[in-house]
């Protein structure tokens, strides 16, 4: 029986660009070029490896976002995912993580799945809560923050390295998994992969396809409100000295002055 894997990915503003907020205090997505969140590349990679180990598997890559977010899907398809689902709707502008998890959960259910794979966090919001939210909404086990993952006989196993302990986890499918940047370097798309990706199907869904009302999502429907955004003032120039043999002592004097010693 085919193993149906859905990988959730996010199209994010490039962190090396000068990221800003728009007037309505949502992230300005026109301001900086976007790309597939680096941490989601690890999720695509692990999905590909799990699929390789399975007798028969199909990987669907899923995103919620504006037209440009298709770029993130294309990247994942060029790495080797089989097909893509793009949820796009004007009413989604300003949706927060609660709304996004609702949309993703409905899209995952509609697509059909045995395993959902996510990155550990997005590189823009960096909340790291979406995988847990999906597991809660889908009513399936969460096997999250894995640095190693494998699937065998309908069971997902993995290692979670926490602050205080390293744990071996196990759950029956269907399940939601998230993987860390320690799970294994993501592959680069080959030229062949890039060409093949152009022919792979990308299904578009909107809110009505998912039976979600407009007021459940978007800025108006958000569960949280941003009241103010302030650009952090540039740090005032610090003292910089060249070490002429006393650099360590000079630094110690600075630390003492600031009462760290």
């Amino acid at each position, binding site marked *: 029986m085919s193993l149906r894997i859905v990988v959730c990915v996010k199209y994010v503003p490039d962190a090396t660009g000068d990221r800003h907020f728009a007037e309505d205090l949502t992230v300005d997505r026109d301001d900086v070029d976007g790309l597939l969140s680096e941490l989601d590349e690890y999720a695509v990679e692990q999905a590909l490896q799990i699929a390789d180990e399975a007798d028969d598997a199909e990987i669907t890559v899923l995103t919620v976002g504006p037209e440009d977010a298709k770029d993130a899907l294309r990247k994942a398809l060029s790495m080797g995912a089989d097909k893509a689902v793009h949820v796009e709707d004007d009413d989604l502008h300003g949706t927060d993580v609660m709304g996004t998890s609702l949309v993703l959960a409905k899209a995952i259910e509609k697509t059909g799945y045995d395993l959902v794979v996510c990155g550990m966090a997005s590189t823009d919001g960096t909340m790291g809560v979406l995988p847990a939210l999906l597991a*809660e909404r889908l009513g399936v086990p969460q096997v999250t923050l894995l640095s190693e993952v494998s699937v065998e006989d309908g069971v997902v196993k993995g290692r979670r390295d926490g602050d205080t302990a390293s744990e071996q986890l196990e759950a029956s499918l269907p399940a939601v998994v998230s993987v860390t940047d320690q799970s294994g370097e993501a592959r680069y798309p080959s030229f062949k992969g890039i060409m093949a990706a152009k022919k792979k199907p990308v299904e578009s869904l909107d809110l009505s396809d998912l039976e979600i009302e407009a007021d459940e999502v978007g800025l108006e429907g958000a569960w949280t409100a941003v009241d103010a955004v302030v650009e952090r003032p540039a740090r005032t120039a610090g003292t910089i000295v060249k070490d002429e043999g006393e650099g360590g002592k000079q630094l110690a004097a600075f630390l003492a002055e600031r009462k760290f010693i």
Partner: protein
Amino acid sequence: MAEVLVYVDHVDGAVRKPTLELLTLARRIGEPVAVALGSGAEATAGTLAEHGATRVLTAEAPEFADYLVVPKVDALQAAYEAVSPAAVLVPSSAEGKEIAARLAVRIGSGIVTDAVDLEAGEQGPVATQSVFAASFTTRSRVSKGTPVITVKPNSAPVEAAPAAGAVEALSVSFSAQATGTKVVSRVPRESTGRPELTEAAIVVSGGRGVGGAENFAVVEALADSLGAAVGASRAAVDAGWYPHSSQVGQTGKSVSPQLYIATGISGAIQHRAGMQTSKTIVAINKDAEAPIFDLVDYGVVGDLFEVVPQLTEEIKTRKG
């Protein structure tokens, strides 16, 4: 006065510092009611009472250790239903955020994560967050349901504020999902004897300029002279010189100590994302053009193998 639930992060009854910071913040918006779960839960009560907990709700069951996250969500939900709090505060650890998120879905509330400050506001608690590699500060609040907010370590001072801290047993019935993810085995991390990276008041980090695993001894010696945690840049971790659990940066840990000392770190955006909210920043690097120097309060352009040992010696001398 409204009650505020505070989820307690503890190891066998020893309360971790971020929870004590949460109690300081919780008192700004109401009366803290602590929720301590698992082995040693009751042993937390004394410390929690000293720091302002009016009540301590405790539950012990094997499920908390044997299965991932969900049993704790079930318990926190039971506490929520028993208390009807004005807000729920949880430390921003990886697990804390997952617990908070699932609770928020269940109670129909929004969630704000990684707050670095919290105040009472007219429409409920207002959380300050630091976003986009700390280039912006936002003020956010939960607009639907009971605010669920996770707070980063080092966001508030730990203050003594003796309160009753009456221990009450919390009755928990576990959901069908509680046993979904089994913890098959658990190996405690070997203690380095140094403070935990995300909680430390001082962090000393090493990067590519350290040049090798064995050279980290220089960084560690400086850290030990200051009672600091040791961090590493992604370059140093990818090179295998230091464990990933110590990586500071966008794909590693985010730290916000009183003092951050970067040695041999150039300061790529990915690293800055993880340390830019540090209160005082110091860098030692051979390259005068390194971007890290744009952030520093004090920088030394020089060879870290000259500067750092001299600094360490001077600190030891000054401390006597």
